[in-house]
């Protein structure tokens, strides 16, 4: 089975505002409004908060540890207050250790907001996106940052659009199968060190590391650069994990599936993934079988389950009188080809 233990799993418990800004300024066009601020503040939570009630003075259960988003409503509220009221209202939230404030919808900060942000050294950003859009993008980004990450030893290939992860003992031939698949036009996601990240519920996304990229070790050859060798068509950066194929040396005592009627799955970080044990035998072309696994997976996905259809055909025949299999063609009709 796949080797996953506590040592393979990481989860960030916080990110700094500096990191957040570095990544999001490019992605979501965030603009920094206050130059003198404390960039080492930390974000501990993937959710965002709109501090309407806190601005109005109600700070019980105030989710201060989250990124604070001020939209039209909050700014309209601040603008309708007198200067002293506005100062009081903002200090209500500034006395908490909030990570940063983002103004959505091209909103401009009020003078007092700017002054206080400077005084309390709170990073202040603005975005031209609408609040809903901005909230969606940033939540998604933070979700990814705070998601569980699992490192797995294997080879990860996109075979006809199905994300297939080959696992198995060292030297069993995972990289060789991956290379063979690449040569046949499939795309390598990563070899050797695969990092899986949970995305939403029930989805695992896989990618390589920034060091190994699309490099691969072939025993007896050494390290090769797949992207350079086979071109851009041979690689991709990320892929959803859909099938785990365990390669192993044929073991007489192990029971391998013959009909494919019952599917085995493996649970990775709470996500169920189709799991296939593939014994290696002389004369067996693992690459072609891998392609067939992918195609069969796609067929099932589109509602065609070969094992079930064969079973149903047999069951209906068993009910009839002349159940035994006959020749598939009644009469050759002068066709002697």
């Amino acid at each position: 089975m796949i080797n996953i233990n506590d040592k393979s799993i990481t989860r960030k418990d916080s990110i700094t505002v500096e990191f957040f800004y570095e990544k999001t300024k490019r992605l979501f066009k965030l603009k920094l409004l206050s130059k003198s601020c404390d960039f080492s503040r930390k974000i501990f939570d993937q959710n965002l908060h709109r501090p309407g009630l806190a601005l109005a003075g109600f700070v019980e259960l105030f989710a201060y540890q989250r990124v604070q988003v001020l939209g039209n409503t909050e700014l309209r509220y601040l603008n309708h207050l007198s200067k002293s009221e506005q100062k009081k209202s903002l200090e209500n939230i500034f006395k908490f250790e909030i990570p940063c404030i983002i103004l959505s919808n091209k909103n401009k900060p009020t003078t007092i907001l700017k002054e206080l942000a400077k005084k309390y050294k709170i990073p202040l950003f603005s975005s031209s996106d609408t609040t809903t859009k901005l909230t969606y993008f940033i939540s998604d980004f933070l979700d990814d940052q705070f998601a569980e990450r699992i490192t797995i030893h294997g080879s990860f290939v996109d075979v006809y659009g199905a994300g297939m992860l080959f696992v198995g003992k060292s030297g069993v031939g995972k990289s060789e199968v991956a290379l063979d698949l690449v040569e046949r036009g499939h795309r390598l996601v990563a070899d050797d060190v695969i990092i899986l990240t949970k995305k939403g519920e029930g989805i695992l996304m896989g990618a390589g590391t920034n060091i190994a990229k699309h490099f691969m070790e072939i025993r007896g050859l050494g390290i090769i650069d797949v992207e350079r060798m086979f071109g851009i068509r041979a690689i991709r950066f990320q892929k959803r994990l859909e099938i785990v194929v365990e390669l192993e040396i044929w073991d007489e005592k192990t029971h391998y599936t013959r009909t494919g009627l019952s599917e085995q799955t493996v649970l990775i970080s709470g996500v169920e993934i189709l799991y296939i044990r593939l014994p290696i035998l002389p004369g067996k072309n693992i690459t072609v079988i891998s392609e067939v696994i992918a195609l069969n997976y796609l067929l099932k996905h589109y509602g065609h389950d070969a094992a079930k259809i064969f079973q149903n055909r047999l069951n209906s025949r068993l009910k009839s009188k002349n159940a035994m299999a006959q020749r598939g063609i009644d009469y050759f009709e002068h066709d002697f080809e």
Partner: protein
Amino acid sequence: MIELIVTIKNKAGLHTRPAATIVKLAAKYECEFFISRDGMNINGKSIIGVMTLAAEEGAKLTLTFDGADEEEAAKEIVDFFERGFGEE
């Protein structure tokens, strides 16, 4: 199963030559050998994995050996780490 923590002692860190040696040493044994660092758990029998760790001088790595010949494997590989890969 044997689990040990080792520290990288040489100045150059765990670069290609020692990485290749570790992989070669590990390949002699039947047991599973994993190296982990900050949530990255890699197979110690794969050169790309070991190089991906990018373990610099002073980095602490957890070595895990699991299998029939785990003791012999641990002894030889830990010794290689202890000697600072035979480098300064």
